[in-house]
């Protein structure tokens, strides 16, 4: 069973829809016991990182998420919460990934939020299996995770090269939305299920 963390900060319906299309069973839950018992945990997230983190704390899930030993996938703000810290707040993250989350700089002709389909590069590891460099996926964000030793895919917006996906031990994260990224996104979700 896949658990989708239900903490009032998620694009839960979209992630649930993607799992349904892949024929997967899932549950929406904020119950620590259910999360600890799940085969896979997806931590979605949209909006403000500081609000999302506060919401996670209020539900008593901060330590629970960090203690999970089965594969965990953070999506967008869900990934950002797993990083060291975020300039959005600013706020301390769970520190699973070595990345810092920073705001895109102001640059002429470069729009923020980074919204739309962009190409992945430097793909590495099981989550990105079967995908080619240059594959387009869907992003919507104004803050980005920096490059670090956990980076397993990169993307460029303006002059900024950032981590499009991260992995540390059983923790995975995508800054883009696999649930909104067509066939490429379905492949990535299937890879996560197949880990």
């Amino acid at each position, binding site marked *: 069973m896949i658990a989708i963390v239900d903490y009032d900060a998620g694009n839960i*319906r979209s992630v649930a*829809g993607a799992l349904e299309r892949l024929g997967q069973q899932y549950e929406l839950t904020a119950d620590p016991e259910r999360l600890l018992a799940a085969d896979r945990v997806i931590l979605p997230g949209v909006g*403000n990182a500081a609000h999302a983190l506060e919401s996670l704390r209020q539900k008593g899930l901060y330590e629970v998420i960090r203690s999970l030993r089965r594969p965990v996938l953070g999506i967008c703000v869900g990934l950002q919460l797993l990083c060291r810290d975020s300039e959005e707040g600013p706020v301390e993250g769970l520190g699973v990934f070595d990345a810092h989350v920073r705001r895109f700089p102001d640059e002429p002709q470069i*729009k923020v*939020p980074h*919204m*739309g389909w962009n190409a992945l590069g430097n793909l590495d590891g099981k989550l990105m299996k079967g995908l080619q460099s240059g594959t*387009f996926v869907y992003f*919507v964000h104004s803050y980005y995770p920096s490059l670090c030793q956990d980076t397993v895919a990169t993307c460029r917006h303006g002059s900024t090269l950032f981590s499009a996906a991260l992995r540390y031990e059983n923790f995975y994260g995508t800054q883009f939305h696999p*649930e909104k990224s067509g066939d490429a996104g379905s492949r990535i979700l299937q890879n996560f299920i197949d880990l």
Partner: protein
Amino acid sequence: MVAKRIIPCLDVKDGQVVKGIHFEGLREVGDAVGMGVRYAREGADELVYLDISATQEGRSTFVDLVREIARGIDIPFTVGGGISSIDHAARLLDAGADKISLNSSAIADPSLITHIASQYGSQFVVVAIDARTIPAGSGNWRCTTHGGKVQTERELFAWAHEAQERGAGEILFTSMDHDGTCKGYACEVYARLHEELKIPVIASGGAGNIADIVEVLTTGQADAALAASIFHYGQISIPELKKALAEAGVNVRPTAI
């Protein structure tokens, strides 16, 4: 680099896709979820569903359709039409919409943009602007509401700036001078919006052929092109369009099929 987006727009009435010329004389063309799935498979980058019955008749059955769309399609979609409160926006978000577009209601109460954007983020709020030149053919663009039926005094560029300042994540501009004519987009307006705004601009109204779309994404510098009839009636196929755009040097996401 972010790819330029191609966005089919599906006008929905009673769960069916319709498209009217100049927003009048409606005619049914197909099933909303089924057409969305088809467009996603063909390589559409995003979809817009407009509930055209909402403003006039206040329908709420659209929310159920949004839930079905979210289950059925694997690309982002925007919903619009008659969204006039933060509660209404929240219901659509909960049903699975990625973005909402505000039009008449934002002009009636601009603070709606501020409230929804601060609650759910700018990425959730598209401000749709319909405007026409007064007198026709002049450079004086004034906004309209209610599908072009009501003329307002609001000046297009001032309103676009205000929408951005209030937290809109994107501007969807439709030229009522061009909409339904199939003679091309209002390119000079998009170029100016691109120049003046920091947020992405979606072009809508006037596409008649592939060259029109190439032009608005190059000369017009729009971030995305939206069209309806030319896709619905099969005058342009999305794979063909993507190929032509790539050949013209436009950065697009290639169609998988």
